[in-house]
């Protein structure tokens, strides 16, 4: 390939979701002289940020304070969040949300013209900004449309990144397949930002779209960067059975309640406070009952299931989410998408019936190990968004903190990568050619593998089902080890994977195989981390180790890829600034306050 059509940028962003777009705009605005590339395997506005419904947290109202948001986030994380990161996150959040507002995000408004806020699970005050119940959709389209105005941004839409290029201890670009032609090409850069989103697709039942396969994590992992806190998988308590489509937490924020098959508001039995009658003006109470954190609500479902208090249906057991008492008008103005989804995919109208729901894999707290500056241990490589783990989410993310994380850390990653690029030499193209050739060979081998092996879909099915069995809401040593063994076996079998499609143009069969390859790596890292954390904290519940163990495990797990491809797990202390670990109390704001003043 001649030097003319060599693809080269100052900063390369892999991922065109909320985090990637925010990062790219940060570079473009602050350093108009830098050239930026955005590689995305789907057109950016298809990224899964589009599916986020409920809202985005930031302190804006007079009755709220940064202290409160910090405390909610830290206690929600079961004290596994790094407190310096949370403090910074909460401090920068309002400015970032106002920035989105100035870029046209159609936030829902109060009569005065100020942005409106709504209550959300685990938050003591109303601080979640929303654009009806299509917040992520509006945020993503606002960011995408805003990014169109910057001439310094070049997009590589429908290019699939496969590998990071590293030389001299510095990340200098990636290789990517242009789907339209099937060509693998290097894209060189002085600094790289990974913003490839989460990886819910390693589980069979998830709110995550097809593209959430954790490619970016695997690329960083293979380049020698650690994956942090991988064992923490968030189950959202209210997914539609069958499809896994999410019914947003905002439905509970607006006053919706959960009932078991006896019609009881069963959360009252799980230390989440006392239920108030639905006509009580104080309902719904913050940090109480239905507005408890997601890990606790999903765990309560399993307990109810064990007691036989759930309904059973074609797609497994479920409970009822009831929003009928909100009335048609409120549902149509605040939760129109919930009504649309329940009607289309659940076959029921929530104005007249309860919505069947069950816990569903939703969000990954773990990810690429970064520091508070969004930098990884590999110079020149940054990560932001759901693929990264700073960590502000610890053992359980609070709803509506994630979208905020995208813009706060996306912007940071952008600024820092830009500064790094400013002072760095261009990529050492000559020295990287052999890596590019090696990657081309790897992919060609998969493409040209003789037939006879397993199909991609079959291996994927086995992987997701073993993840659900061993690494679900409740885990045991034995179960996890079994899952780990199954995954290792699948890893072997992947070597002989048999493709139906051996052509070049839009070979989605090949892309699925590459995604599966990445998912197997990160599933193994997840299983190893879950095996080694012998305590229960937040979303990681070990029935054989039911207690939280701060002496041993007030630590982040770090999975590194060993030479033979197997993960090696070590631990690193959590950063504590002002909030020593306390017990996570939910039930009433007073209790929470008491817990806070005690600590």
């Amino acid at each position, binding site marked *: 390939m001649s030097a003319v059509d060599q693809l080269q940028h100052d900063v390369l962003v892999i991922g065109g979701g909320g985090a990637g777009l925010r990062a790219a705009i940060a570079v473009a605005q602050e350093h108009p002289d830098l050239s930026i590339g955005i590689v995305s395997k789907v057109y950016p506005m298809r990224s899964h940020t589009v599916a986020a419904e409920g809202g985005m947290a930031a302190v804006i109202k007079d009755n709220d304070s940064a202290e409160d948001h910090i405390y909610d986030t830290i206690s929600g994380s079961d004290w596994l969040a790094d407190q310096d990161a949370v403090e910074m996150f909460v401090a920068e959040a309002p400015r970032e949300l106002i920035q989105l507002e*100035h870029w046209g995000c159609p936030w829902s408004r109060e*009569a005065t013209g100020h942005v409106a806020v709504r209550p959300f699970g685990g938050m003591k005050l109303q601080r979640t900004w929303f654009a009806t119940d299509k917040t992520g959709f509006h945020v993503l389209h606002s960011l995408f449309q805003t990014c169109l105005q910057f001439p310094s941004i070049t997009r590589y839409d429908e290019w699939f990144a496969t590998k990071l290029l590293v030389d001299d201890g510095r990340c200098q670009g990636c290789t990517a397949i242009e789907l339209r032609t099937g060509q693998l090409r290097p894209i060189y850069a002085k600094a790289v930002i990974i913003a490839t989103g989460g990886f819910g697709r390693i589980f069979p039942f998830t709110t995550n779209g*097809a593209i959430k396969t954790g490619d970016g994590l695997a690329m960083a992992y293979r380049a020698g960067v650690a994956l942090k806190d991988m064992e923490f998988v968030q189950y959202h308590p209210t997914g539609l059975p069958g499809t896994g489509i999410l019914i947003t937490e905002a439905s509970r924020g607006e006053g919706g309640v959960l009932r078991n098959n006896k019609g009881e508001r069963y959360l009252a039995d799980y230390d989440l406070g006392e239920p108030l009658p639905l006509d009580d003006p104080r309902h719904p109470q913050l940090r109480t009952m239905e507005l408890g954190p997601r890990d606790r609500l999903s765990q309560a479902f399993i307990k109810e299931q064990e007691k036989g208090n759930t309904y059973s249906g074609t797609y497994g057991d479920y409970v009822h989410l009831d929003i009928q008492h909100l009335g048609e008008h409120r549902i149509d103005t605040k939760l129109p998408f919930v009504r649309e989804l329940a009607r289309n995919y659940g076959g029921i109208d929530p104005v007249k019936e309860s919505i069947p729901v069950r816990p569903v894999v939703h969000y990954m707290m773990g990810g690429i190990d970064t520091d508070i500056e969004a930098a990884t241990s590999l110079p020149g490589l940054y990560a932001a968004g759901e693929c990264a783990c700073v960590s502000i989410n610890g053992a359980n993310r609070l709803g509506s903190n994630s979208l905020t994380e995208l813009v706060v850390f996306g912007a940071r990653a952008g600024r820092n990568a830009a500064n790094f690029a400013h002072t760095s030499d261009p990529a050492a193209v000559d020295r990287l050619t052999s890596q590019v050739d090696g990657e081309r060979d790897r992919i060609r081998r998969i493409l040209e593998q003789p037939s006879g092996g397993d199909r991609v879909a079959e291996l994927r099915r086995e992987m997701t089902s073993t993840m659900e069995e061993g690494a679900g809401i409740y885990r045991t040593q034995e179960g996890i080890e079994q899952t780990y063994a199954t995954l290792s076996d699948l890893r072997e079998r992947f070597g002989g994977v048999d493709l139906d499609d051996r052509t070049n143009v839009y070979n989605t069969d090949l892309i699925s195989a590459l995604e599966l390859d990445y998912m197997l790596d990160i599933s193994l890292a997840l299983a190893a981390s879950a095996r080694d954390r012998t305590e229960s904290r937040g979303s990681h519940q070990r029935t054989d180790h039911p207690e939280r163990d701060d002496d041993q495990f007030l630590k982040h797990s770090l999975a590194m890829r060993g030479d033979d491809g197997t993960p090696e797990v070590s631990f690193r202390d959590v950063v504590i600034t002002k909030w020593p670990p306390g017990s996570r109390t939910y039930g009433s704001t007073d209790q929470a306050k008491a817990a806070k003043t005690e600590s």
Partner: protein
Amino acid sequence: MSTAIETMVKFEVFRYQPDWDEPTYQVYDVPYREDWVVLDALNYIKDTIDGSLTYRWSCRMGVCGSCGAMVNGYPKLTCAAFLSEYLPGPIRVEPLVNFNVERDLVTDLEGFMEKLESVQPWIIREDGATDDLKSEYLQTPSQHAAYQQFSMCINCLLCYAACPVSSHSEEFIGPAALALAQRYNLDTRDEGVEQRRDVILKDEGIWECSFVGECSAVCPKHVDPAGAIQQAKMTGAIDYYRRLLMPWTVKS
């Protein structure tokens, strides 16, 4: 649930590869499930029968806009088209018309991306550079309501596949992009009406639309692009006469 004999539905799927002279239709038998959408059937085919079938999808909840296709001749989101509506079959699935087809159901979106960019779909402000981000721009709920509907577009492009004008004029900016232009023009935070004027009013802009209205009929998000274009025409016409008859009322 499992009946002795499964009901099967026939699918006739459009297949095309760049080195073929002609597209063909391939027939697949897919088991019928009451709660399945066409996308589920395509995934079933890809996972169990033919991994080479090529189409786009991601969210499978009608919000990412990837999965548009012609289902029995009508533009649909395949993730929102229930098999039950097409019984007993056969169900014919083809790529969206009025676009180039790259392969199977995958169409070329580059033309649309250029049109989208051409209408400058972003907030334009005179104070843009000096913005201090101290507080939000105020906007009342009714000001918000004025453009809200036009901000719901997921860029699925079903409207282009329904539009006879788009079919005959590659240059026509088309329903979705024009609706987005109108979305920004109606936003009280925006000051870019003048900047967008030329693109919207040029030959390939709103005046090429002959108000067939089918774009609004097929839009899965009730954006009503036809309405947006008509409203823009109305504003454009009033503006024209105002410039002609009362030039002193127009800011230069």
